[in-house]
């Protein structure tokens, strides 16, 4: 097996582990994946390391069971960590160098690259990624390849994505307690974009919204590069929480109402029954009904608010009118009925659900968009990281 990587996502609602390999045509094939419900995680952050460790152990056992069933007997030793959460920030930073010979050469390009990697972070922050955007030669911007251009100053604009070191370390601690070494943390929203976007969409301008359980990551591309990214601390769990409060249900009942009955739009299905059954939470409690319109109202209000926050964030960065390829929804939250129609209306742009397009092996999944981030992480790893054996010995696991 060549170029073989694993990634784990310790999400608010589920912990997912996947193994993939790069294929000859520069695609990724997910060879095995498993998921189990998460515990000890809220809003994409670990609140209970013991519970998170248990989740990781469980998903490791599940993937090993699947591997065994498939005739393999590997034990996973390391994985990339797919992270999200509102502690993740992105700041612009500019590398700069004087052009010595009046024309930009490879020396200047190397130097400006190194200069762009000199941003200092506080001790409690950790880099997730540094993304090159475009070059500037003197006052001329938007340059993708400055080699040979004349001028005095060469600049490289970058986006520096960083996270709270303690939150990342909590995930590392939980993983290592489960005998899983974490390689690098990778940002979920840009990973999802890696999996679902075509290059022409990035050129035309596109927004990826990765709607997870506890948070929503966004990645806006314009002129072929990442123009802005970040995380809003609102996700599908907020929808569930709102439903539970509005109708006094358990979280589990609210989750079922969200998945099975709710729509992001109010009254989008006039033929649907006007009342929705809420099964009793125990055999002693009778089934009751609630108004479908009220249910949809709760969901609609929450999602509209989320998209308003996104819209205002993009407006602040003068990006909203530059996203001509529309918005692409990924993550488990993208499974919400009619959410694509709602986001299209709220952001006044086209919308689609983002299935991983450069990835094979997810054909059996009910909703591949939920795997966009983790498959994007595998794709990113396969393109940018040296192969490292993901297999550990059985002895390592138990001692």
């Amino acid at each position, binding site marked *: 097996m060549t170029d073989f990587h694993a990634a784990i996502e310790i999400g608010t609602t589920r912990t997912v582990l996947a193994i993939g390999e790069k294929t000859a045509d520069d695609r990724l094939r997910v060879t095995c994946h498993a998921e189990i419900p998460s515990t000890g995680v*809220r*809003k994409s952050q670990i*609140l209970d390391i013991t519970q998170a460790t248990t989740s990781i152990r469980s998903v490791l056992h599940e993937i090993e069971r699947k591997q065994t069933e498939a005739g393999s007997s590997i034990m996973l030793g390391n994985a990339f960590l797919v992270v999200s959460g509102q*502690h993740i920030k992105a700041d612009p930073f500019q590398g700069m160098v004087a052009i010595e010979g009046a024309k930009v050469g490879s020396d200047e390009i190397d130097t400006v690259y190194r200069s762009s990697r000199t941003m200092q972070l506080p001790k409690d922050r950790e880099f997730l990624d540094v993304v090159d955007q475009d070059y500037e030669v003197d006052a001329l911007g938007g340059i993708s390849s400055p080699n040979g251009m004349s001028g005095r100053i060469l600049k490289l604009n970058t986006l520096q994505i960083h996270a709270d070191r303690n939150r990342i370390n909590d995930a590392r601690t939980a993983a290592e307690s489960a005998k899983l070494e974490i390689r690098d943390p990778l940002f979920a929203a840009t990973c999802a974009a890696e999996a679902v976007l075509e290059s022409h969409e990035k050129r035309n301008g596109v927004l990826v919204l990765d709607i997870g359980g506890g948070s929503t990551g966004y990645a806006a591309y314009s002129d072929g590069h990442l123009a802005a990214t970040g995380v809003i*601390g*609102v996700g599908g769990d907020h929808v569930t929480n709102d439903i539970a409060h509005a109708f006094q249900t358990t979280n589990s009942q609210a989750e079922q109402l969200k998945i099975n009955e709710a729509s992001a739009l*109010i*009254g989008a299905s006039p033929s649907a029954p006007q009342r929705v059954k809420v099964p009793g939470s125990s055999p002693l409690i009778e089934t009751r009904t609630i108004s479908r319109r*009220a249910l*949809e109202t709760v969901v609609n209000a929450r999602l509209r608010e989320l998209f308003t926050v996104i819209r205002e964030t993009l407006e602040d960065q003068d990006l909203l009118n530059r996203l001509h390829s529309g918005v692409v929804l990924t993550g488990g939250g993208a499974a919400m009925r009619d959410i694509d129609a709602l986001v299209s209306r709220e952001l006044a742009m086209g919308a689609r659900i983002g299935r991983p397009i450069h990835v094979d092996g997810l054909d059996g999944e009910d909703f591949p968009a939920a795997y966009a981030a983790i498959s994007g992480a595998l794709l990113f790893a396969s393109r940018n990281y040296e192969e490292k054996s993901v297999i550990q010995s059985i002895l390592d696991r138990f001692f």
Partner: protein
Amino acid sequence: MSDTSSMLLIGIGGGGSAIARGVRRAFGEGLRYLAVDTDASGSDRADEPFVLIGGDRLSGRGSGGDVVAARLAAEDSISAMDQYLEGVRLAVITTSLGGGTGGGASLEAIKHLSEHGIPSVVFATTPFTFEGEDRQRTARGVMTMIEEAANATFFVPLDKLVGDAETMEDGMRRAVDTMASAVTLFWRLVEKPGYLRLDAERIRHLLAKAGRGRFAAVTMQGPSRAADAVDALTRAPLLATGSGPVRAILCGVLAGDDLRLKEIGEISDGIRAAFGSHAASFELATVNDEETFSGRISVVLLLFEANGKDGSEEKPGGVMSPKRRKKPSGPLGVGPQGRGRFNNAEPTIWNGEDLDIPTFLRRNINLDV
């Protein structure tokens, strides 16, 4: 003349402009008013502010009953309204649904106003039953969108406005007059001083997310005028069109200097007893205008239902977004804070609001569960 009035009356389409003109006639000086139409013949009146929309697209000949054409026309040129919007804090729109301009242009106007941070209250008539299912369907489709876009809406079936009028002309005149007089009373309530004052800012706040409502206005005189007014309101056909329990009541009492405290009490108690058994909010205002109401008493009543504007369109932190948190008034109320499972998590704060608290709570959206 109150040039500094922060309310603007906008009549949209032929029917809406007719109602608005009726309000203007009844109210007199001091009413900020604008007519918006796709039909250039509406601009024949030199004394009224008028915005012709879709001039290039429709050549000033009207929309021909085509909602889409009217909407496109409004998209083209609704910004021509901007010159009339300076200082406006609340827009009251009168329109008539079922045709083209009233439905199509009203929606765009509401959105445009919203973009300027101006909330809108819509008084709209819906078609006569005999006008046929097509027009009814057109009106219903537009009503849903208007209801979502506007802050408060009052949809009034024309059938209920014409009473026992025998001819079409009489019926239409009566419909326009009835709507106009109700809106005029509403206007007086806000613009004229009273001991129980309701100014534009208060009304703006009250109507910010009021949703769909019903309204009626009656005028009585004589020694039992207060009791008679309550009695008339309890029988008013316009108040019998709702589908849900009343959650909020706005009651205005307009009279001359002879308005007695006992009468205010009678009206307040009577309205509460008749309509307010489930009402979470009751707002009473009075206007003392001896010149207009001498010897008479007028009561304008606005009722809002629990399932009115339940799909709130408020922006987080937007101009109409209340920062206070309040228990929902629905039967399944919840705890005062509502962070629920996010209690121990780092809060998500946006424009000063804690987004972990359910949106419907922060927006005071009533749920008819």
